[in-house]
């Protein structure tokens, strides 16, 4: 499973993309795993307005990652 970070999340973590060989069962478990490795990233992921997309679909709250191939964490968006 690929994990993608965008915007300031990638700056905080120092990486933009990572492949996990053993994917966590749920989004909350993935967040916990990332926070365990890097507390600054964990804090940033829990910050206001950070959304997650599983296989390019926005999810609210918890999501099961069984079979998911890509999870992206998206800080507050601003285009234009």
């Amino acid at each position, binding site marked *: 499973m690929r994990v*993608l970070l*965008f*915007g*300031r999340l990638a*700056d905080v973590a120092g990486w933009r993309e990572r492949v996990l060989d053993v994917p966590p069962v749920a989004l909350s478990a993935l967040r916990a795993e990332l926070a365990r490795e890097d507390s600054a990233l964990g804090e940033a992921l829990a910050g206001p*307005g950070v959304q997650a*997309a599983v296989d*390019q679909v926005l999810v609210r709250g918890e999501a099961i990652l069984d079979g998911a191939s890509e999870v*992206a964490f*998206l*800080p*507050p*968006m*601003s*285009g*234009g």
Partner: protein
Amino acid sequence: MIRLQTEILDVGALTAGFCADRSETGAVATFIGLARAEGGATRVLELEAYSGFTERQIALMVEEAIARFGLHDVAVVHRVGAVAPGEAVVFVATAAPHRREALQACDQLMDYLKSRAPFWKKEHGPDGARWIEPTGKDLADAERWDG
């Protein structure tokens, strides 16, 4: 047309192309967002998107605007990568039978792009870099179209 590109936006060609061959469109509104120098505080704007996802999220916004305002057509072309002051960041065009629908659709699409489209912007200046996030006003502007 929804397109992300690293190349400079040719707003003249985009406008001419969008207006061509329309016999029943009475109104075309366009919006062009330009990168500002901020008196020298911004040297370059760095724009990131989530390829594939970003285009699809914009397509949902465009579909909603087409249905709400009865549009004939919409174009959204957005820069990604490094953008210098004075260069266009975004080009939005809407075609409708009458003027109010075209202008309002342009307004709505820009509000959505500012705070709901998957782009991340970093401003590089002489004092370092900072991420630009939507302001309270940007969020309130987008909420005008909800519900």
